């Protein structure tokens, strides 16, 4: 199952040439469940360029990517959890909590930047561990676990700060989110973009490693995975930890980019999950490509930009967004239903959810 989802339309090919690898990549980008998101991404970008040709210039593209990076990182984190068959609803609150923690502990002092970032990472790992262990060992459905975590983080952070965030971020802390390397063509190569690229490379590598294969197998059929020697609880817990750590990273970028408010991160869990599903990743696990999940996030951000460019009234945006999401996912579902005929029927049909 793992293999069939990863390389659609390819039989076992032990040694592949560079050419067929490229073909593979193409098949992956425009085939399977993730085709829709890349097509949609191209359409949205084309629309933006038509409305505002100057958006195609490198500096504004870079600025856009800088702004989009946090959601993309969140979506990658969410991907790991979703592909393993779970949900993580706590990432939005976690982002908010981390930004508030950073502001309160750094309190404007440069020297504290690195220790506080390390502390935040520790906190992120802790949250992920708690989410994962409660879900896997105590058998609480992850929807409830992470919903509970969302409430706890939301309440605890406000309880701690007395309702409004206190303190200030240091300049060094804000660098990753807003700074970059000054270059000729693009004006500024944002740190956020480089961090994003790093995360994507690592994520792709992880998904190609045995851990990634195991994760997908677990999401597809945890019984089968369990019987073939996978320690399901460990694999899933690690997925939750990855999600929380990436949420922490996203928090650092968002904090740097947008500063500290009480509303940071609110509702981001839904946006991230939407992005992942838009990328053709099956809720319920076992199917999907991490790059497509990231492309889903990019598409959503591009959609927001397009709304801006069209100067659409902000009140009507959710409605348009809702229509586009439903249409895209419905279209992808249609697409996925069709090619099943010339793929292995049994492996696909069992993962077909209503």
């Amino acid at each position, binding site marked *: 199952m793992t293999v069939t989802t990863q390389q659609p339309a390819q039989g076992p090919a032990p040694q592949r040439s560079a050419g067929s690898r490229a073909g593979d990549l193409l098949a992956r980008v425009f085939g399977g469940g993730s085709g829709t998101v890349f097509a949609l991404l191209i359409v949205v970008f084309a629309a933006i360029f038509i409305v505002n040709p100057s958006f195609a210039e490198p500096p504004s593209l870079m600025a856009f990517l800088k702004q989009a990076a946090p959601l993309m990182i969140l979506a990658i984190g969410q991907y790991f959890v979703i592909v393993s068959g779970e949900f993580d609803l706590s990432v939005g609150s976690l982002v908010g909590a981390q930004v508030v923690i950073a502001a309160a502990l750094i309190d404007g002092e440069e020297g504290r930047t690195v220790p506080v970032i390390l502390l935040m990472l520790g906190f992120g790992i802790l949250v992920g561990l708690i989410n994962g262990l409660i879900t896997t060992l*105590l058998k609480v459905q992850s929807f409830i676990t992470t919903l509970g975590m969302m409430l706890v983080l939301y309440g605890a952070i406000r309880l701690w700060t007395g309702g409004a965030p206190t303190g200030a971020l240091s300049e060094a802390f804000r660098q990753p989110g807003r700074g970059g390397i000054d270059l000729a063509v693009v004006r500024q190569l944002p740190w956020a973009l480089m961090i994003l690229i790093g995360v994507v490379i690592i994520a792709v590598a992880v998904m190609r490693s045995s851990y990634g294969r195991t994760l997908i197998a677990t999401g597809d059929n945890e019984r089968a995975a369990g019987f073939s020697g996978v320690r399901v609880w460990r694999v899933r817990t690690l997925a939750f930890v990855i999600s929380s750590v990436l949420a922490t990273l996203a928090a650092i970028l968002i904090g740097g980019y947008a500063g500290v408010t009480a509303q940071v991160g609110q509702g981001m869990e839904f946006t991230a999950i939407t992005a992942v599903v838009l990328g053709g990743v099956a809720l319920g696990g076992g199917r999907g490509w991490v790059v497509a999940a990231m492309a889903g996030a990019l598409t959503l951000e591009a959609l927001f930009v397009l709304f801006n460019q069209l100067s659409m009234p902000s009140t009507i945006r959710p409605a348009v967004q809702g229509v586009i999401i439903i249409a895209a996912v419905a279209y992808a579902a249609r697409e996925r239903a069709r090619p099943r005929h010339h793929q292995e029927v049994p492996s696909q049909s069992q993962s077909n959810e209503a």
Partner: protein
Amino acid sequence: MSRAVAVAGTGKADRRRLGATELVWLALVGVTIIGAILVALDGQNLFSIANTRDVLSRSSLLGFVAIGQTLVILCRSLDLSVGYVMALSSLIAATTMNGDPARVPLAIVAVLVVAGAIGLCNGLIVSVLKVNPFIATLGVGLIIKGYLDTQYQGPAGEVPSSFQQFGFSRIGPVPLSTLVMLLVAVAGILFLRKTRTGYHMFAVGGSADVARLSGIRTGRVLVTAHVLCSIAAGLAGLLIAARFGTGSALVYNSGYDLESIAAVVLGGTLLMGGRGGIGGTIAGVLILAVLDTVFNILAVDPFFKDVLRGTIIVAAVAIYARRQIDRKASRIRFGGDGGSGGSAPPGSPPDSAPGDTGDPVPAGQGGAR
């Protein structure tokens, strides 16, 4: 989340479901007793008429939503649009009535029709277009939000005082709205137990494929569940209109979508579908209401309230899941059908494979048995 969820065999399910529901009611009794002790230590009485009334009137609003949500979750779907449906319903009710008592019936019909239509959309998107319910209902919710934000800047409409009675009048200590909610709950229980569609909901939630192969029109069942869920949310919207005396778009910020799901799961219904019931859901709603009342009496910091509520929900579901696994595990071992049986609340399959017996913590099951 394994896909091999059992067909909750309709014959056996009855007994099992009852056990689960009893457990939740026991939890409610436990929470009430602990709450009463805490309140008593504070020198007050949880069972005083005012406090009982508070518990009951808190439970009615969430109760309506949760009853509908139960039906949808039983079918292994989900409805995240209920908060928006409530807001829209309250606005439709208030603007249609517009202060005129004669227009109350018209308003009620309008709300139910619109809510039903939204449910129909949800159901069709999920069953025909095969969009995952999470995304489908989130998207429909966003569409309604867009409409609400564009159309209504603030509270609108006016509810005549005759209809406001629905929100405030009581019979003895029991608020009228709670009575109506309980009536709806009884109707829902009868629907699930006595009608064909009700039985089919368990089957569809257990396994849509098996249900389809046994001749159930799964799409229709799913659509029915979604329509009923939205109508229940519409009733909640009517209640909001009656209580506020006007329609309010901002209701969707109150988090009723997630809270109703929490109440349903707290009530012992599996998020994976196929098992559970409205009886448990009502207990889940009451647990949340008792908690809120106790927090209120003890004047707990509102933020700390969130922390406590999150912890309690997770803890309750953990205890509950543990019970279920125990029963399940013994069934697998002694029933002799480990492969096919009703073996899959989230994560019951053996995590420890033959290969890793050396593992110091033999996976999740070590703790569970």
